[in-house]
């Protein structure tokens, strides 16, 4: 069809349809670039954006950390609860997108640390400094993972509170709960750093 368009003067309708397809492809490529999905995904979106729509239509794409599937499941469950018709009378919690992005960023950092730990080989008579640093890294990793688990549990509790609010009314502090989760996630970095300083 592209050859036909090149060999003969195409009609306005054909040009319009091809232009619409290309325009959506360009928009998709721009979105893919902005969401750091990679150059290959952006190029793929140019040509076959219908196949890559699931990536372009979602605001959050996990990067494959150890907790990514659970984060995705928890986020999907929370969004399903928020989208429930019975929940439409409530405004969505503020900064939910920020919380989800922070979760995925923390998960990315966990994945990076896991790769680092797997790649470091301690020789038999390793210097005590290297062994100690590795031990600190393990501890910080465990602390961060525990905090992420707690935030995921908090998301599940948030869903229950949304249900409770739909029955009881505005007395249930959904927004405050969300702010608490955000603060907890922000403290993950500080907590890990504090652990390292205390052990030093």
């Amino acid at each position, binding site marked *: *069809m592209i*050859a*036909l368009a090149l*060999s*003969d*003067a*195409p*009609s306005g*309708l*054909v040009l319009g349809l091809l232009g619409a397809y290309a325009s959506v492809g360009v928009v998709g490529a721009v979105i893919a670039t902005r969401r750091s*999905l*990679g150059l*290959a*995904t952006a*190029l*793929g979106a140019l040509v*076959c954006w*219908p*196949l*890559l*729509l*699931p*990536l372009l*239509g*979602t605001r959050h*794409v*996990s*990067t*494959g950390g150890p907790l*990514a*599937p659970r984060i*995705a499941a928890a986020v999907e469950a929370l969004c399903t609860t928020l989208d429930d018709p019975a929940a439409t009378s409530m405004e969505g919690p503020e900064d939910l997108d920020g919380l989800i992005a922070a979760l995925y960023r923390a998960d990315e950092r966990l994945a990076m640390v896991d790769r680092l730990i797997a790649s470091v080989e301690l020789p038999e008579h390793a210097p005590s400094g290297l062994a100690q640093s590795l031990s600190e890294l393990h501890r910080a990793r465990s602390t961060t993972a525990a905090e992420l688990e707690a935030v995921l549990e908090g998301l599940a509790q948030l869903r229950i509170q949304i249900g409770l609010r739909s029955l009881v009314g505005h007395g249930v502090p959904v927004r405050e709960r969300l702010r608490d989760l955000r603060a907890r996630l922000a403290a993950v970095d500080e907590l890990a750093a504090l652990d390292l300083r205390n052990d030093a």
Partner: protein
Amino acid sequence: MTPFTVSSLTSTVLRSPSALVDHPDPRHALATFGPRLLAIGLCGMALFGLVVGSYRGGVQNLYAALKLPLLLLVPVVVGLPAVRALHAACDVEAPHARLALAAVVGMARTGVLAAACGPVLWLLYSIGIDYHLAILCMAGALALVGMPGLATVVRSLPAGGRHRGVASLLSLVLLGSIGAQTGWLLRPFIARPRAEVSFIRPIESDVFSSLSTAFASARGRYDGWDAQAEGFLARERDQEAQP
């Protein structure tokens, strides 16, 4: 082990495509592997196209290598929304990401298998088989390598639902029709030995009327064939060409 290199990805696509399709996070898998899978599938079909074009040789090699990836891509892009909608109507809710991932995995599988069939086809063409037999061999090879790709997509659909067999059958008919019409539009892949080589022929009627005419001819009924251009792609060009 998560496949990161092209060779390990190709191996996974052939040995256990479900390892990719059943990834716990389909969106992540699509983001990570989707572009490479697309590239693998389209390159595989391009290699197959080089072999197909070698029947005539010369520039037909290049033409067929450029057109055969489209033969794989267009039916999937056009038909996948219909497949999803038909199965959703039968209570088989396939998440969009999972179905798209299965589609690119299926395309990669078909492309690699098509490239693998290339040497066999080339051997047949090299002994100078008849033109019609060459076309049948190409069509047969495509049907053969298309089955595993299609099976990947069908197996990705969740279990359960009502009358899912009907939805699957309709999906097969739709994808087959779109594929056949795409092949008709993009012909010739194998140029006749004495015919002029062209990238694409003008749109003439459609594949269904061509097939029905061929069947009638095979039964001894020669009523002729109306090759009038159809569809808004062809019709408006004809109107512009008229004084």
